[in-house]
């Protein structure tokens, strides 16, 4: 792309009028190359002495003395800078805008095409846009600035969708877009790619764009291209450093919390009801109870006076768990990123070399991440018609995560499933770790510790010190290519890539960790007469090692044919084959009794016979896994892609591809799938009848075609094998019921596009309409349980998605102050057309934005039971039964039908977009982005209506709004909480319409402010440019539709480890550009 811009700049310079100039003073004018309007605010510098001036509103600038200067440099943000020799004095300079539509090329991973010769739908992010955001991951750079792309913050979803989803599952990443890094699919961890190495990102959206990628293109394709050197280019160097700080994690945002005093109140109530009797009377498993219950029991047994009890409870009631976590387990993030990049080339050789280093301090104490990347690419041209390309991309990242104690993460639970009580103190005032209750009663631990058992108490802060959990990734991508030019028309490309990624993890819970002590204690045997101990699980740490290796190989042979006849016909054709193999394997092993000092573990444990354990029962020592896992995917593809242009007005694109894969594993004809697409383009503005001078470009595009999606399902009855830990026998389990008719998923896509640009370039943009029909989509078909299976995979579903995408650039001001507004707006309407299974109403109302396949409704939708308010006498939630308000929950649920339920709408945005404003004043530029999402709903979570579950599974702030006495129903919609449990009452409430909210919101996403200096001369070192910038992200919501003050993007998803909103971050960065 750069190359293209260069050519344009050169052409513009040719228009310069040449005048001779004898005086020492110098006056000239600078104009926009296409509109010939004067340009104000252009920075003009004389070289090498560095004298600077600026053009006035009439475009004229003046130097009083130009002695000693030999060349001149002109720069204006948004335009291509010009450097020209003063030897040929001129009085008019023409500058070409960077945002020129025709300068853009698209990368498909197989070829590079000028945008105007592609009828398909592409979104292109150039280097400037890629670098606008500061992030560790390359994908984050697309968020909010790419038409058609929607990011999801729900950890259950795919990270992003391109024009919605057209597959029902997300098993093995089947809904993820295909990511291409420099011509080949990238299979490794996406964080292996350093964003600083990236020159551009092209998103392929429709069939004509993506069908070249065949059976894996249905979810869209993201083509990432790294920076490259050019032939005959002097050495260029870039150094980039930035540092990002975050605000303190806001633990007070979470609603999954009860204040200690109220939690204690609930515990007292349950205690009086006898809820804890079973646990308190338990003499076998000695299940833990909270400190308050222990106190209440002591009080009941007369060991504690009422005054002392109340005093102790008052003390505990003042503890706030959120503060404990904030102080001891959380911190603000700090991320640093540096990179150095060099590129250049001679006549026979071009090269790129870059190194990058990232270091992130994460929000949980003790957790960090670092990444080192190294990239090098060499292109040799030993002969006139031969090019040899070699490249290496190496990444080493290290992730250190001993702390998994996110707020309300299950790791912080006690008794495995109970949420930590809110009066837990993690450290005393001096910061010394304090114990919290974990698995067993304190009295039991006291009694056995006195007998000589290992200490059996638990403290989270100690665990951080005793745990070592790190994983490192080594990734190496090697590439070799040979390009041979038979003639100016025909060219052959052979490319080979090998990607090798090793992920090794090391998880050591050393001998003082609770996990190791607990395991040793549970199995230890105490001789009751001598008091001596033997340890079937040896004392020491527990080390778990795992390793996963990914090895993918790609070979591609391709012929490129390019020809023009006369001045009217131009043909570009590529065709070739591709073979891919991707193999992953992995294993893990466990060492007991591990001593890190000597690296010794013990292997001769008795895993075969059950042994008595403490406090009660018997068990097998968990045997370490002995097997390895291996997954092998193979693909063979043939493809052909052709573009024909007539009179630079009419355009025809054709593309065809067949793919074969070792999926489905049945009949050959089902294994290979042919996919094709066709596209037409019409350059209206070049027609003679097109007389308006308002538009310089007007183009219509239409495409149609098919993309495929390879879902890893099996058409045969398959079983998975393992060795049973219980019997030691080979053990088979059936994985899927057979379906011999299983086929690939296909997506049929229509795309219509209209591109335009006004002659004065004030307004440019494109409008696209698309329709995607998901065909033969694989779904879980329900089977009666009497078949031995619950579901099987079948091609029973189809979907339809359609939408509009508008991308508009308005140049509002073009004076000294420049102001561009970039508007991106998307609509998306998706429907399930067919789904061969009738979902029960109870399935419809479940879920927090999951796929709810119901014909005629959006893929992701929110349903609920209609809400009839609270019963004024007892605060029961009420639904409708035969149109009457009712509390007969069993009947409400049993009699619900899709017609009687409330259908709210889509659970994913049906329109979204952004408004980005870019301001430029002299060398300053300011950009801020406002994003919006709308037309969707989300289900909020509330309290469980059963007192015991409130304690056990979900503490929640809605507790404070609950109905308590008649009259409360006027102020609240939160029902009363009851004991004993009434499961259906709680189920009904959690799925009722009162908990559904609109997701619409407007967010002030980010601001970027930068200052740029050009042509500096620091101590003899010529610096071509310096940029200093600051970037602030996650500025906050400007508006939200929901009544509860929730951020729909940060709302607590059931599986999220904590639910802390994205922290505001501030980055400072420095970029040096040397020539």
């Amino acid at each position, binding site marked *: 792309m750069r190359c293209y811009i260069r050519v344009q700049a050169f052409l513009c310079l040719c228009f310069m009028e040449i005048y001779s100039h004898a005086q020492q003073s110098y006056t000239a004018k600078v104009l926009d190359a296409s509109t010939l309007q004067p340009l104000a605010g252009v920075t003009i510098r004389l070289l090498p002495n560095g004298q600077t001036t600026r053009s006035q509103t009439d475009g004229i600038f003046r130097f009083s003395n130009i002695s000693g200067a030999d060349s001149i440099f002109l720069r204006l943000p948004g335009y291509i800078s010009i450097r020209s020799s003063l030897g040929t004095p001129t009085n008019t300079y023409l500058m070409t805008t960077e945002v020129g539509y025709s300068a853009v090329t698209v990368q498909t991973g197989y070829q590079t095409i000028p945008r105007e010769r592609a009828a398909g739908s592409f979104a292109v992010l150039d280097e400037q846009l890629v670098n606008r955001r500061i992030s560790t991951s390359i994908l984050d750079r697309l968020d909010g600035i790419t038409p058609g792309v929607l990011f999801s913050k729900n950890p259950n979803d795919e990270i992003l969708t391109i024009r919605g989803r057209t597959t029902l599952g997300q098993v093995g990443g089947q809904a993820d877009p295909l990511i291409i890094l420099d011509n080949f699919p990238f299979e490794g961890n996406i964080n292996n790619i350093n964003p600083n190495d990236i020159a551009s990102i092209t998103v392929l959206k429709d069939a004509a764009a993506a069908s070249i990628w065949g059976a894996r293109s249905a979810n869209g394709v993201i083509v990432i291209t790294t920076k490259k050197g050019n032939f005959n280019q002097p050495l260029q160097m870039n150094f980039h450093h930035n540092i990002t700080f975050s605000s303190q994690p806001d633990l007070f945002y979470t609603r999954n919390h009860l204040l200690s005093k109220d939690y204690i109140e609930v515990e007292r109530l349950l205690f009086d*009801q*006898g*809820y804890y*009797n*079973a*646990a308190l*009377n*338990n003499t*076998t498993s000695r299940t833990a109870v909270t400190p308050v219950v222990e106190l209440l029991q002591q009080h009941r047994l007369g060991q504690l006076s009422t005054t002392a009890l109340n005093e102790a409870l008052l003390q505990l009631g003042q503890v706030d768990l959120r503060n404990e976590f904030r102080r001891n387990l959380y911190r603000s993030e700090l991320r640093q990123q540096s990179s150095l990049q060099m590129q250049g080339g001679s006549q026979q050789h071009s090269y790129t070399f870059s190194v990058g280093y990232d270091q992130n301090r994460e929000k949980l104490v003790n957790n960090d991440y670092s990444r080192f990347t190294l990239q090098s690419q060499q292109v040799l041209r030993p002969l006139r018609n031969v090019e040899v390309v070699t490249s290496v991309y190496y990444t080493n990242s290290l992730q250190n995560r001993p702390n998994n104690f996110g707020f309300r993460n299950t790791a912080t639970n006690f008794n495995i499933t109970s949420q930590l009580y809110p009066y837990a103190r993690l450290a005393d005032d001096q910061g010394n770790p304090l114990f919290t209750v974990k698995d067993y009663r304190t009295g039991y631990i006291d009694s056995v510790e006195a007998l000589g058992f290992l200490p059996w108490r638990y403290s989270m802060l100690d665990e951080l010190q005793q745990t070592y959990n790190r994983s490192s990734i080594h990734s190496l991508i090697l590439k070799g290519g040979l390009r041979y030019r*038979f003639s100016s028309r025909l060219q*052959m490309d052979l490319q080979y890539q090998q990607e090798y990624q090793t992920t090794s993890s090391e998880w050591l819970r050393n001998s003082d960790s609770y996990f190791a002590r607990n395991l040793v204690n549970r199995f230890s045997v105490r001789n009751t007469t001598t008091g001596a101990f033997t340890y079937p699980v040896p004392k020491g740490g527990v080390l778990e090692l795992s390793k996963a290796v990914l090895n993918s190989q790609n070979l591609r042979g391709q012929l490129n044919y390019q020809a023009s006849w006369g001045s009217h016909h131009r043909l570009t054709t590529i065709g070739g084959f591709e*073979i891919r193999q991707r193999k992953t394997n992995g294993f893990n092993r466990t060492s007991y009794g591990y001593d890190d000092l000597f690296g010794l573990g013990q292997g001769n444990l008795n895993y*075969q*016979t*059950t042994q*008595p354990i403490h406090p009660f*029962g*018997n068990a097998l020592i968990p045997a370490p896994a002995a097997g390895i*896992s*291996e*997954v*092998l995917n*193979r693909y*063979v593809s*043939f493809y052909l892609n052709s573009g024909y242009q007539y009179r630079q007005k009419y355009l025809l694109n054709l593309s065809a591809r067949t793919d*074969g894969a*070792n*999926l489905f*594993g049945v009949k050959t004809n089902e*294994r290979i799938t042919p996919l094709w697409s066709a596209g037409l383009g019409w350059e209206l503005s070049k027609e003679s009848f097109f007389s308006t001078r308002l538009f310089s470009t007007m183009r219509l595009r239409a495409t149609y075609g098919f993309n495929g999606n390879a879902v*890893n399902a*099996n058409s045969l009855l*398959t*079983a*998975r*094998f*393992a060795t*049973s830990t*219980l019997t030691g*026998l*080979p*053990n*088979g*389990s*059936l994985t899927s*019921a057979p379906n011999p008719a299983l086929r690939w998923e296909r997506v049929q896509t229509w795309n219509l596009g209209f591109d335009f640009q006004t002659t004065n370039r004030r307004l440019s943009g494109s409008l696209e309409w698309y329709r995607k029909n998901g065909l033969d989509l694989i779904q879980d078909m329900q089977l*009666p*349980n*009497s*078949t*031995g*299976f619950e579901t099987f995979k079948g091609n029973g579903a189809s979907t339809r998605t359609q939408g509009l995408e508008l991308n508009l650039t308005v140049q509002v001001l073009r004076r000294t102050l420049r102001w561009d507004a970039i508007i991106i707006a998307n609509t998306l309407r998706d429907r399930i057309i067919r789904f061969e299974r009738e979902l*029960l109403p*109870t399935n419809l109302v479940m879920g927090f934005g999951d796929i709810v396949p119901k014909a005629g409704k959006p893929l992701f939708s929110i349903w609920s039971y209609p809400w009839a308010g609270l019963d004024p006498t007892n605060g029961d939630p009420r639904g409708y039964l035969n149109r009457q308000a009712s509390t007969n929950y*069993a009947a409400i649920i049993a009699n619900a039908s899709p017609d009687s339920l409330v259908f709210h709408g889509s659970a994913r945005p049906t329109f979204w977009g952004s408004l980005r404003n870019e301001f430029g004043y002299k060398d300053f530029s300011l950009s801020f982005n406002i994003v919006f999402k709308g037309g969707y709903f989300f289900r909020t979570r509330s309290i469980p209506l059963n007192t*015991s579950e409130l304690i056990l599974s979900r503490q929640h702030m809605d507790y404070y709004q609950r109905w308590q006495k008649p009259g409360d129903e006027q102020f609240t919609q939160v029902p009363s909480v009851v*004991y*004993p*449990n009434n*499961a259906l009452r709680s189920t009904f409430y959690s799925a009722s319409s009162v908990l559904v909210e609109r997701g619409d919101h407007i967010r002030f996403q980010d601001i970027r402010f930068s200052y740029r200096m050009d042509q500096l001369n620091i101590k003899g070192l010529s610096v071509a440019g310096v940029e200093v910038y600051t970037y602030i992200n996650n500025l906050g919501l400007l508006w939200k539709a929901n009544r509860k003050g929730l951020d729909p993007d940060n709302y607590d998803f059931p599986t999220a480890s904590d639910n802390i909103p994205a922290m505001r971050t501030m980055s400072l960065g420095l970029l040096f550009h040397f020539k």
Partner: protein
Amino acid sequence: MKTKYSIFFCLLVMCFCSCQRQQDWLDAKVERNSVVPGRLSDFQALLDGDFLFQQHSLLSLLSSDVYYLPNAVYNGSSSVFVRNGYIWSKEIYEGLMPSEWRSMYQLVAVANICLEGAEKIPVTAQNRLDHQQVRGMAHFFRGLAFYNLLQYFAQPYNAGTATTDLGIPLRLLSDVNDRPGRSSIATCYEQVLSDLKAAESLLPMRTASKIRAGQAAVKGLLARVYQTLGDWEAADQYASAALSIESTLLDFNSLNQNATLPFPTLQNQHPEVIYYAESMSSSIYIGNNAIIDSLLYRSYANNDLRRTLFFRLANGLPFFKGYYTGRDGRPFEGIATNELYLISAEAKARKADVTGSMQRLNQLLIRRWRTGTYQPLQAANAEVALQLVLSERRKEFPFTGNLIWLDLRRLNQDPRFARTLKRIVNGVVYELPPNDARYTFAIPDIEIQLTGIPQNKR
């Protein structure tokens, strides 16, 4: 120019070659540890699957009368099976799938797959034993599963109406599109017997693992089936035949009475177990929740070691610990020799062989009592013998899988032994009279919706 074309030619050849080889190359399997079962060893591995001997039943024991729950425990329970099963509600599942239906039909599915798969493999001199083992085990599982399903989802066997009473769907094909309706109870039992007799003709005398059935196991199961059918001649014949192969009894004097779980686990080889299976676990079995019926607890004599090996006292209340699985909260649901002694004793009593009956009973009980304290039982007549056997049966099998439930259903047919079960929860009295419709569980709603088979009345 020549070189150019030769390169071009080579490229074409490469394309062509790859077409030829493509199919072989794409035949590679995706996951290394998964396979399309086709060999006898694959089928054997399926039959040895852990899930085939785990999670057999839950509701039957929860609905039995050997235990009761204090209000606090009942109120604190979140399981619908406990909350509804305990009080014999008409509606139990609340949308959940009972393991009785799911796990038994899984057994049937594996059995059908193995039978159809084995049929395609020719029998040779080398594979004959393996072949028989696979087919024998498949028939055994199918017979066991159909038999158990009949005990949960069909009315108790009544010889008079068995040809018209609705049984269960007899799924005999692995094809998931097959939709058999409910056969009559008589047909179902014919199928159970024919499967088990086929297994009897195929299975080896003894097996390497207790999760596989040998001759003693299949004969023992046949004895249990005939006991359900009231065919006492056959029941005794099969129980005795099984005992002639495997009659070992565990001398309870050899066990540690203070142990928290006194009986050996599957891995530690319980000598009485001849086929190993487990029930589902429930949280109320663990800890001090399910209190043993005091009448039952008091029925054990002081020198009866079962009193201390089966139960532990906490705060003066008895709780069960004597799981034959040796695992806390996991009732045993396989076949053990103690059951064979009791089936034989009952059958002999029913046949008026008082001496034979008492002999079997005494052989068992002498291993249950403290050494030297056991006084052999004697019965004046068959009626007394039967009473003795049945009362010992109840004492031998508290918390043993579904046996209590099977006995309740079976013995309710006889007015002499019929009992009304009663629970009191939060002051409300719940009763289950003999032969009540609630002795038959409802078929899961989803099954009714998908197959259209008739539902049970409850």
